[in-house]
């Protein structure tokens, strides 16, 4: 007998912005509470915020090792200084006639530990970062928390995404919403690599426009379908329309305005998404329409 299996595929939508504070998380929260249950993954591992709104249950907690740092065993160190010349991160110096490794500058390459003739340098893993998974009121949630000052956030984002996919599969959830970090570096690249759709949230300021240009250039390298939301467009109509014109020239699937509404902040204070606060507001209806297009538009 041939067994027929249904292949399960969930759609991953990443919400990002070059510039911080344009409204990524508030918009992600709105999309996550519009209709069907979703998996919501907070990929802003540096400053995860969505758990504040949704207070997810803590069903799973995993340690994430971000890398290593070099530490000197002063019982063995002879202050020969061999390690200093090998370190390319300017992390090792002589201070008060003692070899000192700066924890901040150390990149964790381990070269000093390998070349030390006295075996006096040990590598200690950074294991303070975590990945959490649980349920929230409209589905499942995954989020990462990078311990302050640690690096390798891109790898942590990958783990959050893998976990989200696994949860989507076991629970039969069709949509994964990824709330991304600001910027254009490693964690952003990890957030958008291999997703189905990218939503870029910008604001009508010169800075917002400049950062949008940079992030669109990055996303284009990955050949992904791009949707742009010009949030708080009414703060500057002229810059907003410049951005919209630019988007149309750049072959972007959709560029939509979203009005400034203080209710977005009121919703946050009440630990709700704007949709949960009031689905009838102009901004809520608009978000509903934008999400419908994002979900259904084919490339």
């Amino acid at each position, binding site marked *: 007998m041939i067994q027929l299996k249904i292949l399960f595929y969930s759609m991953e939508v990443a919400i990002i912005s*070059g*510039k*911080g*504070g*344009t409204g990524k*998380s508030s918009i992600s929260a709105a999309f996550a509470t519009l209709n069907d249950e979703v998996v919501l993954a907070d990929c802003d591992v*540096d*400053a995860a*915020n969505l758990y*504040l*709104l949704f207070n997810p249950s803590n069903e799973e907690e995993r340690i994430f090792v971000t*890398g*290593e740092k070099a530490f000197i065993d002063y019982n063995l160190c002879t202050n020969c200084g061999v390690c200093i010349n*090998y370190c*390319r*991160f300017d992390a090792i110096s002589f201070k008060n006639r003692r070899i000192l490794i700066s924890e*901040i500058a150390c*990149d*964790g*390459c*381990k*070269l000093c530990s*390998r*070349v030390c003739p006295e075996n006096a340098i040990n590598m200690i893993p950074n294991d303070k970062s975590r990945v959490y998974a649980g349920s929230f009121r409209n589905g499942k949630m995954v989020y990462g928390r*990078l311990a*302050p*000052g*640690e*690096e390798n*956030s*891109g790898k942590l984002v990958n783990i959050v995404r893998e976990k989200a996919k696994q949860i989507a599969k076991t629970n039969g959830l069709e949509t994964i919403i990824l709330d991304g*970090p*600001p*910027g*254009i*570096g*490693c964690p952003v*690249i990890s957030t958008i690599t291999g997703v189905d759709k990218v939503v870029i949230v910008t*604001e*009508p*300021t*010169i*800075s*917002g426009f*400049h*950062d949008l240009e*940079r992030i669109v*250039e*990055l996303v284009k*390298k990955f050949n992904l379908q791009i949707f742009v939301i010009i949030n708080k467009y009414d*703060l*500057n109509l002229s*810059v907003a329309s410049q951005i919209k014109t630019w988007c149309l020239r750049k072959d972007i699937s959709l560029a939509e305005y979203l009005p400034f509404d*203080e209710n977005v*902040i009121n919703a*946050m*204070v009440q*630990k709700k998404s704007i949709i949960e606060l009031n689905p009838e507001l102009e901004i809520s209806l608009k978000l509903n329409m934008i999400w419908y297009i994002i979900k259904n538009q084919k490339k």
Partner: protein
Amino acid sequence: MIKIAVASGKGGTGKTFVATNIFYALMRKNFRAMLVDCDAEAPNSIAFFQTKLIKVSEVTQLVPVINIDSCIYCGKCREYCNYNAIFILPPMKIIQVIEDLCHGCGACSVACKYDAITEKPVSLGKVNLYSNNGEPLFIEARMNIGVMSPVPIIKEAIKNINNQAEIIILDSPPGTSCPFIQTVEPADYIILVTEPTPFGLSDLKQSVEILKTINKSFGVIINRVGIGNMEVYDYLTQENIPLLLEIPFKKEIAELYSVGKIASEKDFILEKQLFDTVENIILQYGSSYNKR
């Protein structure tokens, strides 16, 4: 010289707004000040001033190049690489450097006993020097699109600081990971900019946690006062953190910012308040720095 970093855990709270307006106020009082934009992923501060680009330096990183004629596929380089940036299949004589993962530490070159590894520079970004009257006044770290980490560019930008300057304002990248640490580490004082919302408070707490761990002096400016709630005030009182200044939420300020204008040019109260804030910081922390 005193270095003051303007930072915030959360993006978009007004770091660049505060940094550029402070810098404007200092220039008007004829201080020898310098503004360093360390947000290499999204550099925006320089656009607020009339400037001339005077110097561009390329920031590069070394990556290994493997000479397959000398390589015996022993795998020692891969063993030394702590970033999994070398891929090797000895039986098939395949060896490949994954440049995106390489941090340029040079461990593989040390590992190789067959002289099969040389290194070549690859570009990560630029450090741009700008002036508006001949003297270098602005430094901008700008990461290339597609590069993973802004840290080497931030480090290079900070190295370019002119020793003649009296006051350095560092505009920090958002977040609390490496790029943030690299910017605040050399600073004598950190101004954290937040907004009175739950997200703002949550990110502020993370920044405070790290600044306490690395033993830095800091205070808080609350921007967009009038929106959100009062929780941030309770937190500051509870933790005994100085509240340096409150900037009200005004549509006019947002509009001036949106078109790349310095709000202090129109808002003299804001200019004075920011100047007084910085003057207090200099009086308190500048002198102790000189004694060091």
